[in-house]
C-alpha cells in the first residue's frame, strides 16, 4: 500500500474540511454582531496605538497605579470566573458523578477560551511582551517569585485544558484513533489541572501580599490566597449557571436532544454547591474580620463598600441559592448566580484597583480605550466560542 498517497489524500481531506468549517454560518446581522464588530475593530485600532506609542498613550495607568482593568478585570477576574472547569472536571472525573457529564465539554471549552483570552490579555499589558518567553525558556528563573509560579501554571494549565478538550476536536476532525488516545489521557490531565488551578487561583491573590501598605486593610490579609481560591470555586459554579442560561437560549437548536428535566437537575446541583462554598467563604471572611479587629474600619464609606461586597454580594446570594435549591426555583438560582458573579468582580477589582492606594486623592479610573479593549477581548472570546460550539460536538453527549 502506498503510504504517501494515503497520507496525502487524508491531509487534503482534513484541509478541505477545515476550509469548509471556517466559513461563517447563519445570519450575519444579529444584534450581537452589530455591537461586537465595531467594538472589535476600534479595539484593534487602539491596540495599534498602544504598541506603537506605549501603554500610557491609551490607558490611564500612572506611576502609582501600574495595574489597571486590563490586569484587574481581564486577568485576575477572568481567571476566577474560569474556575468552573477545574471544579466540574473534579466532580465528573474524580468523584465520577455522571449527572454532570453533559456539561463537561462546554465548561472546559469555556475555561480554555477564558484562559487563552483573559490570561492572553496579559500580553497587551506587558511593557515588553516579546520577553514573555524569558520565564519559560530558563535563561532567568525567579524561583522565589510568586509571579514566576503563576506564569508557569497559566501556561501548563492552558495546555492541560487543551488536552482535556482535544478529544472533542479529534471527534470533529474525524480522527478516531487520535480521539481514543487523547481521551485516555483525560484523568491525568484533570488531576494535574486541578492541582495547577488550586495553586494559581491562590497565587493570583499571593501576588498582592507584598502590597500590604497599599491595599485597604479591609481587603488585605495574609489569607488573600485562600480567599481567592475558595471564591474561585463558587465563581466557577455561578459562571456555569450563567453561561448555561445564555447558551440554553442562544443555542437552543444545538441542545435539542437534551432532556429539560436533566438540565434542571444540573442547575439545582450547581446551585447547591455554590450555596455551600459561598457560606464557607463568608464564614472565613467573618473569621478574618473578627481576628483582625476590623470593627472600627466599617464606619466610613470604605466600610459600607466592603459590606456591600461581603454581605450584599456573598451572603445574600448564598442564601438565595440555598432557598432556591430548596424550593426548586431556577429563576432565583439564575439571579443569585449573577449577584455572586458581581461579588467576584467587585472583590477582584477591589483588591487590584479600587481599594489599592485607597488613600490617594487622584484615583485611577480606566480610560475609554481600556474599556473598549476589555470589551473587545470578551467579544472576541464569544465569537470563537460560538464558532466552536456550532461546529464541534460540544453540547451533544458522546
Amino acid at each position: 500500500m502506498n503510504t504517501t498517497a494515503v497520507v496525502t489524500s487524508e491531509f487534503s481531506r482534513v484541509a478541505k474540511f477545515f476550509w469548509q468549517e471556517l466559513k461563517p454560518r447563519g445570519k450575519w446581522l444579529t444584534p450581537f454582531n452589530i455591537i461586537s464588530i465595531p467594538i472589535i475593530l476600534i479595539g484593534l485600532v487602539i491596540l495599534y496605538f498602544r504598541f506603537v506609542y506605549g501603554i500610557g498613550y491609551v490607558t490611564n495607568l500612572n506611576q502609582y497605579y501600574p495595574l489597571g482593568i486590563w490586569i484587574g478585570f481581564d486577568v485576575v477576574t477572568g481567571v476566577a470566573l474560569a474556575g468552573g472547569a477545574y471544579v466540574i472536571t473534579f466532580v465528573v472525573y474524580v468523584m465520577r458523578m455522571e449527572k454532570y457529564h453533559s456539561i463537561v465539554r462546554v465548561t472546559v471549552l469555556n475555561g480554555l477560551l477564558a484562559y487563552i483570552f483573559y490570561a492572553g490579555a496579559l500580553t497587551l499589558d506587558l511593557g515588553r511582551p516579546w520577553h514573555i518567553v524569558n520565564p519559560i525558556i530558563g535563561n532567568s528563573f525567579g524561583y522565589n517569585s510568586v509571579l514566576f509560579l503563576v506564569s508557569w501554571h497559566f501556561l501548563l494549565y492552558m495546555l492541560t485544558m487543551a488536552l482535556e478538550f482535544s478529544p472533542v476536536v479529534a471527534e470533529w476532525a474525524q480522527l478516531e484513533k487520535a480521539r481514543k488516545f487523547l481521551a485516555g489521557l483525560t484523568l491525568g490531565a484533570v488531576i494535574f489541572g486541578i492541582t495547577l488551578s488550586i495553586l494559581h487561583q491562590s497565587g493570583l491573590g499571593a501576588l498582592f501580599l507584598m502590597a500590604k501598605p497599599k491595599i485597604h486593610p479591609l481587603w488585605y490579609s495574609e489569607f488573600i490566597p485562600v480567599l481567592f481560591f475558595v471564591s474561585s470555586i463558587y465563581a466557577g459554579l455561578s459562571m456555569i449557571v450563567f453561561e448555561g442560561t445564555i447558551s440554553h437560549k442562544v443555542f437552543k437548536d444545538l441542545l435539542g436532544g437534551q432532556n429539560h428535566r436533566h438540565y434542571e437537575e444540573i442547575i439545582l446541583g450547581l446551585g447547591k454547591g455554590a450555596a455551600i462554598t459561598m457560606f464557607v467563604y463568608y464564614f472565613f471572611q467573618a473569621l478574618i474580620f473578627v481576628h483582625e479587629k476590623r470593627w472600627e474600619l466599617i464606619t466610613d464609606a470604605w466600610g459600607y463598600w466592603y459590606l456591600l461586597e461581603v454581605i450584599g454580594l456573598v451572603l445574600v446570594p448564598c442564601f438565595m441559592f440555598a432557598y432556591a435549591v430548596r424550593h426548586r426555583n431556577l429563576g432565583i438560582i439564575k439571579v443569585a448566580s449573577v449577584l455572586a458573579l458581581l461579588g467576584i468582580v467587585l472583590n477582584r477589582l477591589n483588591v487590584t484597583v479600587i481599594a489599592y492606594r485607597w488613600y490617594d486623592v487622584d484615583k485611577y479610573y480606566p480610560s475609554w480605550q481600556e474599556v473598549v479593549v476589555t470589551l473587545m477581548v470578551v467579544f472576541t472570546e464569544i465569537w470563537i466560542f460560538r464558532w466552536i460550539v456550532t461546529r464541534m460536538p460540544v453540547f451533544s453527549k458522546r
Partner: protein
Amino acid sequence: MDRRQFFATTATVGAAVLPIKKSRAANAKETKEFVGVLVDTTRCIGCRSCEVACSETNGNFVPDVRNDNALARVRDTSEKQYTVVNRFNTDKGEVFVKRQCMHCWQAACVAMCLVNAMFKTKEGPVTWNGDKCLGCRFCMVACPFDIPKAEYLSWNPRIMKCTMCYERLQEGRKPACVEACPTDTLMFGQKRELMETARHRVYSHPDKYVHQIYGEHEVGGTGWLYLSAVPFEQLGFRTDLGTTPYPEYTKQFLVAVPLILFGVPALLLGLSELTDRKKQVREDEGWSEPEVTE
C-alpha cells in the same frame, strides 16, 4: 541489616558528612558586605547638586536647578529622574530630604520579579536588567517606597530607578550623587560603618537628632539610611511599613506550594480510584472480569 549495624553505619556516615558540611558552610560565608549611603538631613542645604550629577551620569533629564523653582512643591522620583530633593517645613524649620531607591536588604521588587530583571547584586545595589524584564510592573506594586517608575509613553518601556551607580561602584568609585554633595550630607560605605557613624552622631548630639535611624529596621533594613532632627513623618517618610522584610509576606504561600503540588494529585488519584464504580462491582463479585454493559 540489624538495628545495631544500622546505628553504626548511620553514625559513621554522619561523622563523615558533618565536617564536609561545616567546611562548605565556611566557604559559602559571604566576605562582602552590602554597601549603602547615610543621608544626614540636618546637613542638606537643598542645592540639588545630587540631582544634576545623577541625571548627568545616568543620561536622564537634567533639571535647571537655578531657575525651575522645583522646591516649591514636593516631588517624587520619576521615569526621568532617579533622585529628587524636597523641602519640608517642620517644627525645626526647613529641612531638605533626598529621595531615591532605598536598596532594601531584602527587596520586595526583587522577590516579585519572575525573571530576576530586578536583581540584588552581592555588593548591595538593586539593579534592573532590560534584556530580561517583561514590563509587568509588579515591582511597582510590590515596592513599599513606590520607587520603580515605568516609561509609559514608549513602545519599549524601561523601568527607571536608582542603581546606586552600580557601574561606578564596579570601577571603585562612589555613586555620583555622593561625590557631588558639597556638604557631606551623603556618606557612602558599608552598612556597618554607616551605622557606627550614624549612632555616633546621634549619641554625641542627643538634642540635635531624633533617636531613630530610618532604614535600620524598616522593611527589614535598607541600604540607604537617614538621620533627622525631626520625626520622620514630617519629612514625608512612611513610618507604617513595619520591620518585616517584604519577601517574608509571600514565604508562607511559597512553602505551601510543594505541599499542594504533590499532595493534591496523590489525594485525587486515590479518590478517583476509590470512586470507580466499575472496580467496586468487580470487588463484590470476587474480582471476576467485569461484564461490558456500556
